[in-house]
């Protein structure tokens, strides 16, 4: 089964972008160590108690939901708040703050020398014992990301684009089978839209060529069209494509075997499939197949026509039977 990183804890709107170029003044609350320092004890070696007491200390300030400041360089609001609930449910929930952050961050005001520190994910994750066993290795992610439009573009907006621009390490967790697809789509697209505000402006939205762009936005992830199809079992690539290189072929989704859309459908739960799924999975695949109807009204009318036809046939048969009985009675 394909393995995908989907991220469910987006920081506030506009934050993801703002984080990328906050410069040296940032009191880096949302950065993970570029290379894990040797002195940092691993999560396992530290007692849960000391970890939780350390985190409590940091969260004393960082759990304030409005902990933020405006970056004087661009006026953007930089969100430094960490939702304790989201953190403990995130993939990093077991870690102590200082596993990634310099332990001197425990001081307030945070020491000046720490403020320029930049942190990244790949190094740490590739050093994990099970790194090689992963279906979707961080190495691969890194490779793909290097070719992403967010890296290759010259646009000033993407200067300093990093993992954290989209993924909040304090809330990040994988989407799970069984989560509602609409919810996954909403969260996922929220990340993109937090920077790509022009998409919500009807005067500047480049998706006007799409029939019912709003419906598309509710039903599929931006990524489903804006990443190349990868064959090796992983569902979505981290190589984000430029608009001009992205999929414009309707049939890639609207067909019986929608290659693009299948990546999204892996999140439907087994029970969901078992309960109501086999027809829609086998026949409709919950997708609008070109030439087929997903309109409940048309579907119901079609069912009604079939039912009426069946009734007609039954009535005809019954009539024939009655006629046969009568002629038999007459004969006797």
């Amino acid at each position, binding site marked *: 089964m394909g393995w995908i990183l989907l991220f469910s804890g987006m920081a506030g709107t506009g934050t993801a972008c703002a984080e990328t170029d906050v410069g040296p003044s940032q*009191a880096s609350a949302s950065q993970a160590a570029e290379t894990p320092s040797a002195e940092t004890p691993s999560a396992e070696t530290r007692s849960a108690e000391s970890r939780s*007491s*350390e985190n409590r*200390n*940091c969260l*004393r*300030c960082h759990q*304030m*939901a*409005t*902990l*933020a*400041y*405006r970056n*004087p360089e661009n006026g953007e*609001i*930089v969100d*430094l*708040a960490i939702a304790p609930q989201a953190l403990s449910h995130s993939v990093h929930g077991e870690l102590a703050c200082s596993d990634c952050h310099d*332990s*001197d961050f*425990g*001081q*307030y*005001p945070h*020491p000046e020398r720490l403020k320029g520190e930049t942190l990244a994910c790949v190094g740490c994750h590739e050093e994990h014992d099970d790194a090689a066993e992963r279906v979707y290795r961080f190495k691969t992610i890194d490779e793909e990301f290097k070719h992403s439009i967010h890296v290759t573009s010259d646009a000033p907006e993407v200067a300093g684009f990093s993992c954290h621009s989209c993924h909040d390490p304090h809330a990040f967790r994988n989407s799970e089978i069984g989560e509602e697809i609409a919810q996954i789509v909403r969260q996922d697209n929220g990340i993109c839209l937090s920077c790509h505000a022009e998409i919500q402006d009807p005067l500047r939205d480049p998706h006007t060529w799409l029939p019912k762009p709003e419906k598309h936005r509710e039903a599929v992830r931006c990524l489903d069209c804006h990443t190349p199809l990868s064959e090796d079992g992983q569902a979505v690539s981290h190589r984000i494509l430029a608009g001009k290189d992205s999929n414009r072929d309707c049939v890639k989704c609207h067909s019986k075997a929608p290659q693009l859309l299948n990546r999204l459908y892996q999140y439907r739960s087994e029970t969901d499939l078992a309960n109501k799924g086999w027809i829609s999975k086998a026949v409709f695949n919950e997708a609008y197949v070109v030439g087929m109807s997903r309109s409940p009204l048309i579907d119901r009318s079609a069912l009604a026509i079939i039912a009426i036809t069946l009734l007609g046939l039954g009535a005809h048969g019954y009539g024939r039977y009655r006629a046969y009985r009568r002629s038999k009675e007459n004969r006797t």
Partner: protein
Amino acid sequence: MNPLQNLLSTPTKRRVLIAALALLTLTLAYKLVYPPVFDAYVGKTNAQLTYESSKPLTNAEFEGLAQDLTKEARYRTAAAIVESDQDAFARQVKIEMLMGTDSVVRDAEPPHIKYFRDAGIRRYEGPKTCLTCHAAIKIDHPDGSVSTVNTLDDIVNSVHFKFQSESGGFSTYGYDGRRVNSGPHKIPVGKIDRACGIPGSFTWTGWAALIEASPEHAAAGVTQLRSEGCGQCHIGGNYQPATEKMMPIGDVPAEAKEGIDCLICHSTNYDMNQRVVIKDEHGLRWDQDRSLRAALTVGPIRSENCLRCHQHNMGGDAYAHNAAAQASGYKHQRILHRGAKRGNPFSPQDDAHAAAGLQCTDCHRPQGHKIPRGRKGVDLVANDLPGQEVSCESCHSRAPHNNSEHKVLLNGHIERLACETCHIEKLESDNVVLRDWVHPTWNAEEGIWEPTDVYRSGAPGKGFTFLWFNGNGTFLANALGNNPNGSEVYNPLMQQVARIDDPEIIAAVRAKAVELKQQYPDIDVETYVRTATDPLSQLPPALLAKREAMIQENLRGAMNQGESRLYPFKLFNAMMFEDMSNQGPFGAMILPFDYKTYYETGDSKAAVVKAVQDPIVQRMYQEPFKLYMMDEFMSYFGITSGWKTIYPVVDGKLVNVEPHWMRQMGTLMVNHGIQGKGRECKDCHSPNGIMDFAMLGYTPERVAELQNVDVVEHLAAGNTDTPAVSQK
């Protein structure tokens, strides 16, 4: 066949004719019979209104006035340019030079001079004159749409005119747990029908009064007439508030609409000295400035226009920068109230926004004549635009601090604290907290009896306190909200606003009681102090228990709604006479005072008797009024058994009426008088801080944490460069 026979020729035609006649009769009855019948029923007067200041000018006089006004405008422009210049004489010379320069002369003439000149208008006659050109106005709505409305209808149906509203969207909850007017039975609510302990009366009984004052500096027996009453701040110019608007049918009569004072809001040159009570053959009413001088200087609304009235309830009449209070009348001078209603003024001297040149309407953005007061409301209730936000965040964003080294931490506080909590350090020192209307005090200088302000203070914890607030309020103006931890402990209606524990306040109240006892020997000092500082002690045990149960059952829901933050609230309580037939766990119906009797004689009982005999108060104690609104009103008041129509005056004596402090203090939002610099951390985060964290529903561990924030020690010491907190 004559036409009449033709009309009656067939049954159908006859029926049509009968229907038409019936409709005509009904219309005539509604237009001609209903208004005088209603007026007679509520005992109100309507008559043609005339104003002395509305004088016709000859063409020559008009041009002379135009010249004066243009010159004044040029002076203002020139003076603004050299405002910060050198010494007074040099400035004067420059102003005179500038006044003659073309760029200052150009467009200096107030635009209405040309309009009036061209239209041949040589006399200002009130709304009639304005409506000549402004019969309809365009309204810009926040959603970008534009609508055109009839100007007169727009103003007549605004809270400024009728001071009540019955539309939905109230954030006020009755003590019965229902949101006001959320059900099918809607009643008019607002200042018009809510007696209040600050003014001691309400609009029906306290609209306009001429008081005969006997100041000590005047010769014996010589009296001065002084003006008093709610009408001074309300734009209806007739003999009473717009009572007609309280009924589901009927409208304010045309002559009353002619009394609307357009210029008090729209003129830049309105003479507040004209705003005094006058007496004519029909009764008392408020005069206004209807001079051409005021009319010709109509201009865009600025804060000064709003503050002609609103500084009265914000800074107060005694506030040094209340311009209107300094123009109290050429005759019949308005009585200036000591003891500020709210005590946080909006003026460049005391408010950062006013100092920055912001106008009231920058935040309270009007839609036509409807002016938003925001979605959060504790007092007054009436709201023209309940859905429209008026908030700090709409300009300041959610990360407003940019100056401080600790801006991030300061911004972090916004989740729990309203901006006002830190940025209003204190209220004016004459902010009144406890007012005794029952035992008036003689003011020798003014020569009148005044309510006794038992306690005044603008200090945090004394004149105002901090409460959780989610935008909801009770029917008697108590802020609702709860600690976001969902505390069951936080219960302001049994604690913060229902008792005063501060020994300093108690001592001050005792001192005042001792002083009052000299005048009123019946006063028992201990009882006086107890009831003033522990008003719940006035409730019988059964009612007290019912009160606690009602808070839990009816109000917890409204308290726990939404996201509460800590807001500052001005506290206020008053001792008034109460109709004990209508007592519930949250108080009894307070009875108004007749200002003239009260101020002149100091006989508070006689003043109540007089006010209660007002025709509309008598109607209040009758069955139709009970069914129309009073039962519903009492239910919101926490009395579910309905309104008892036992008239409290028999043979000129009060029956079943007792003096009491209201059972809890009212809490009034304070949002102005904003200081650029907020509080220090230590003001709150110390064991003796201004916030009682325990009473605010924090757990003991959290209280200890909040009172003793180690970071604060270092910040306060200015030791911010060295790391202050270590977790190791």
